[in-house]
């Protein structure tokens, strides 16, 4: 069969694995968007910029902080950054929510989109002015250097780690939201904020924290991406539009849906690269068109 298709099984498996890695990023990012959308009813256009911030903070920690504090030996390791960067970016998100987004809830949701678009422009512009547009390199942490020989391909250890880490984070998020008491509050707040508030739950605080968490997810993805992709101000902008298409395909109704869609589309994109790589940039958009024709609410969505 493989001979018929003109490719070797090795190449096929290799591409599928690579697709799965990309899918992991789509999954974390679209998950973050879905969590935010569920609670705030806005699409966070600055998600890509916050993903980029996450990567940049990791890079700054590794290479710049030492010079800033006058101790060139000092640097923030990858593992610390993996925790610290989402916290910082999450805190930044909370500030934005408290000072700006909050004032827009009573208006049309489109204003939230416009505001976050403006914020994305500012963040991207600032990082571009500070660090230039050409990317910065981030070394793969020592423990994850090298590759595992799977027989049919070399799987770099770091990429395997990316898949594992993102799956763990995605499913932990899913578990918290769908299976715990905290998640139940969240879902209640999504369904009927007024009633939930009446039960004595602090809904505004929950909204704030949800936004912070969604943004932190983006930053986490950013740190994961830093050693693979060049850390540059445009890294998020290019990705986020694809993630939007992923979100439209999945529909934002369900947490699990956005995770599964993200992973699946990564795989499909990988397959396209095997058979007709020129189309790999558009395949997700084409799928989006088909889904819209067949199921306008998205695969896992319900019409609101």
């Amino acid at each position: 069969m493989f001979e018929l298709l003109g490719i070797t099984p090795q190449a096929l498996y290799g591409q599928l694995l690579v697709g799965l890695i990309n899918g992991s990023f789509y999954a974390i990012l679209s998950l973050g968007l879905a969590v935010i959308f569920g609670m705030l009813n806005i699409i966070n256009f600055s998600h890509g910029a916050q993903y980029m911030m996450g990567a940049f903070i990791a890079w700054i920690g590794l290479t710049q902080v030492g010079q800033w504090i006058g101790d060139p030996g000092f640097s923030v390791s990858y593992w610390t950054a993996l925790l610290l960067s989402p916290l910082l970016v999450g805190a930044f998100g909370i500030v934005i929510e408290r000072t700006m987004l909050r004032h827009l809830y009573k208006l049309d949701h489109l204003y939230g989109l416009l505001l976050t678009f403006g914020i994305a422009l500012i963040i991207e512009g600032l990082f571009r002015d500070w660090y230039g547009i050409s990317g910065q390199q981030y070394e793969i942490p020592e423990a994850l250097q090298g590759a595992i020989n799977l027989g049919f391909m070399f799987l770099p250890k770091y990429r395997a780690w990316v898949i594992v880490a993102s799956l763990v984070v995605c499913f932990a998020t899913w578990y918290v939201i769908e299976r715990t008491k905290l998640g139940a509050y969240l879902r209640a707040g999504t369904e009927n904020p007024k009633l939930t508030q009446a039960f004595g739950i602090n809904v505004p605080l929950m909204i704030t924290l949800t936004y912070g968490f969604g943004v932190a997810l983006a930053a986490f993805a950013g740190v994961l991406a830093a050693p693979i992709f060049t850390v540059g101000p445009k890294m998020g902008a290019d990705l986020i539009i694809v993630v939007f298409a992923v979100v439209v395909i999945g529909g934002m109704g369900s947490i699990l849906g956005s995770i599964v869609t993200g992973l699946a589309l990564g795989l499909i994109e990988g397959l396209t690269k095997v058979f007709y790589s020129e189309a790999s940039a558009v395949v997700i958009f084409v799928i989006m068109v088909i889904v819209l024709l067949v199921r306008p609410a998205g695969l896992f969505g319900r019409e609101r």
Partner: protein
Amino acid sequence: MSRTALGFILLIIAGVVAPWLNIYPTFLMKGWCFALFACAFNLLLGYTGLLSFGHAAFFGAASYITGHALKVWGLPPEIGLLAGTVFAGVLGYLFGSLAIRRAGIYFAMITLALAQMLYFVWLQMKFTGGEDGLQGVPRGMMFGVIDLTNNVNLYYVVFAIFLFGFFMIYRTIHSPFGQVLKSIRENEPRSISLGYDVAKYKLLAFVISATLSGLAGATKTVVFQLASLTDAHWHMSGEVVLMTLLGGMGTVFGPVVGAFVIVTLQNELADKVGSWVQVIMGFIFVICVLAFRRGIVGELMALFRNLYQRPVGLSARQADVKDTKA
């Protein structure tokens, strides 16, 4: 004489006189092209309540088609402009029929994704020249008699095209069709219950908006003699949103003001602050959304209304200038 008519006359006078005021004509022409683009966009956002984040698709597509028609096929400029505009209209029909299946935020994301898809198509097609763009598009002789290589001739042709598009939009807004659009914006379920086929109205508005955006893009190609990926990139879509928002969405003259302010800022700031332009644009965006949702023209009108204490009860015509849907 109605006030809008007065506005029109002043607009025309400003447009006719401007090139004699020592103003760099290419800059003015750019302004008029973007003003038309923003007005066409405003028809959709301001009057139908649909936020398209992919309008660069139509601007860029027309730009490429016109460029190709003039450069490779050697067609006269009027036919080239027409070809680009018609193409944008057809594209608008295709995108529109897909996008109006969803509303609100989804609509915005779908238009954005579709436009991005088209962007990749242009990138890979041979005739667009990919990253290099279509360079050196000839301006030619309009109708065989007007020599467009002369900047003054070209300026008045561009201004006339703008006026034509602007008037079309004005007529659309103030027709019964436009009233239905506004009713959809205000309350879609009610419009449906009144028996209007809302999807059809939205689609038609989308197509008109796309066509006129195409006209703007096509004209831009003739002015700058090139078509490039910039015209089709999503930053362009964001820019036209900003122009409309800043000038005042849902106002007739707002997008024109917004377009000129943004084009001026870009021109003037580029030399002084370099790459900070993007940061400044971002801040304008944020400020507009947070504190300035009526835009320049909307705020000015509110100011005058307050100053003169006009009774706020109002004819339909006054209503349409007031409603900025803040």
